[in-house]
């Protein structure tokens, strides 16, 4: 968890907003640092986290998590973290018997996939089992990332339906939160990616968009982060501008944010 990002978003592990969908988007750069931030943030906030990790292995997230002060292994052992390792289980889907439903079962289907088994997995992971689950705060679903599903042959509408059902269950029934990462390829011909990104943007309450600098690679400024609050809120003084833009630099254990043009290397 990056304290500077918490300040920008006006959140802290003690006061977690519930019932929100946060969309992480990256364009021209790697936005996975945001995923690591939210993973460690919600684990520190004592929430139950279901992490659908399709891009990297468990050990990768564990190593980065340890730098940020959380141990995924112990979180998984005590039941706070439910981890779906996409890379490993996709092999299981191909090799196991067909009758058993599997969250990634759409990989076996010939036609356009249906993500209902994945939704059932998330629902079972996050629904409280009455006897022991009072310890955790609100449930959280974290997905890294949704664009991989497009590459695996699932249609954009199917992914939108999956997120719709997750929202109905996790955000509304269970008063939890969802954080999902989507890539913006910037390719005008990739209509599915555009439909997915725009459809999710319209459903989300907060959009964090990490962009590469227009001028190219820079050693001191790794990119630009644009924060857009979409939840309709009354114009009170407490809620600041609807949209903020900052530049950032990723260091070994933290990320520093500064106003545009105000990088310490430049001043």
């Amino acid at each position, binding site marked *: 968890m990056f304290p500077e990002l918490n300040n920008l978003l006006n959140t802290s592990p003690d006061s977690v907003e519930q*019932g929100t969908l946060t969309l992480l988007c990256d364009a021209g750069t790697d936005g996975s640092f945001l995923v690591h931030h939210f993973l460690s943030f919600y684990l520190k906030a004592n929430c139950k986290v279901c992490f659908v990790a399709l891009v990297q292995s468990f050990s990768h997230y564990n190593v980065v998590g340890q730098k940020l002060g959380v141990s995924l292994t112990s979180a998984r052992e005590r039941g706070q973290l439910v981890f779906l390792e996409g890379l490993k289980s996709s092999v299981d889907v191909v090799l196991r018997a067909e009758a058993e439903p599997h969250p990634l079962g759409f990989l076996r289907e010939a036609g356009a996939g249906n993500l209902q088994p994945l*939704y059932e997995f998330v629902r079972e992971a996050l629904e409280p089992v009455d006897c022991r689950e009072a310890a955790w705060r609100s449930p959280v679903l974290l997905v890294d990332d949704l664009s991989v599903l497009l590459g695996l042959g699932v249609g954009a509408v199917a992914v939108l339906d999956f997120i719709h059902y997750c929202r*109905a269950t996790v955000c509304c029934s269970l008063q939890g939160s969802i954080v999902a990462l989507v890539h913006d390829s910037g390719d005008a011909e990739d209509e599915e990616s555009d439909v997915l990104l*725009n459809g999710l943007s319209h459903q989300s309450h907060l959009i964090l968009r990490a962009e590469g600098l227009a001028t190219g690679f820079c050693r001191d400024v790794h990119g630009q982060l644009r924060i857009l609050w979409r939840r309709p809120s*009354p114009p009170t003084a407490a809620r600041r501008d609807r949209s903020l833009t900052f530049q950032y630099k990723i260091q070994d254990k933290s990320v520093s944010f500064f106003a545009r043009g105000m990088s310490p290397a430049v001043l």
Partner: protein
Amino acid sequence: MNSPPLSLGAGQQVMTPSKGVGERKIRRLEMLESVLALGGLVLLRDSVEWEGRSLLKALIKKSALRLVYHDLFRDPLNWSKTGEALPGGPLGVLRAMCSRTGPGPVTIALDSLSWLLLHLPCTTVCQTLHALSHQDSRPGDSSPVEHVHVLGLLHGELHGPGPMGTLSALARTEVTLSGTRSQASAHILYRRPQQRPTHETHWFSILSDFGVDLQGVSPLKSQPHPDPLTPPVDPTTHLTFNLHLSKKEKEAKDSLTLPFQFSSEKQQALLCRGLGQATSHIFYEPDAYDDLDQEDPDDDLDI
């Protein structure tokens, strides 16, 4: 507001006309009333930057006295298979609404049309919307004005120009949401029958009780106000070099003929050749090996 977003397809049946609203300021209601005045399909087009759901809720609050709520949010595709889902899904619900024949004006709000367009073919959606918004045109009906409002929320970036244009053509009133940095605006296009379309732009904000606070109207222009923070700047002032021409320089510039411009003098010169003009002439000195035979210059006739 902490409740979940409005689900798909909230149908409302209003038992009495919504005129008995009370003594509010007329200015506050003007925008909402004018949007609802025409009846038929009202299209609310929003974008990621400027969301339209709160305006939809404000319109619903304005127009409805009795609310019937169809919850299609939790299980629109019948994944839970508990039997609670409404039969036929969203399309079935809409078609059932088409055949309802109660008295009094009716307002049907759809959140959102984009969901319908993504899951159903565009033609089906358009036909259903047309049937919904034209329920009142039955021959032999004694009351000529029976307002059916269909309020649809449409997300601008999700659809191509084809579906957007089709829904736009179906709509009587079209509200496009945009704004400058801090102020939202609604650009309203009215298509009154047998009249020219008219535009209006309202600057507004939605309050916490879903009332609308109007900040200004510009009925004549169809573009929003220019940003008052940036006055127009004349770039030719404060320069170290001269960009302007004096009178003499202007005259010289105007009287200049360009070298390749086809003027009448040039035309005359080309037509009247031969008056002392040298025509082109080729001078050729044949080599020793050249055989200049006029009848066989290439030397390939086998005679």
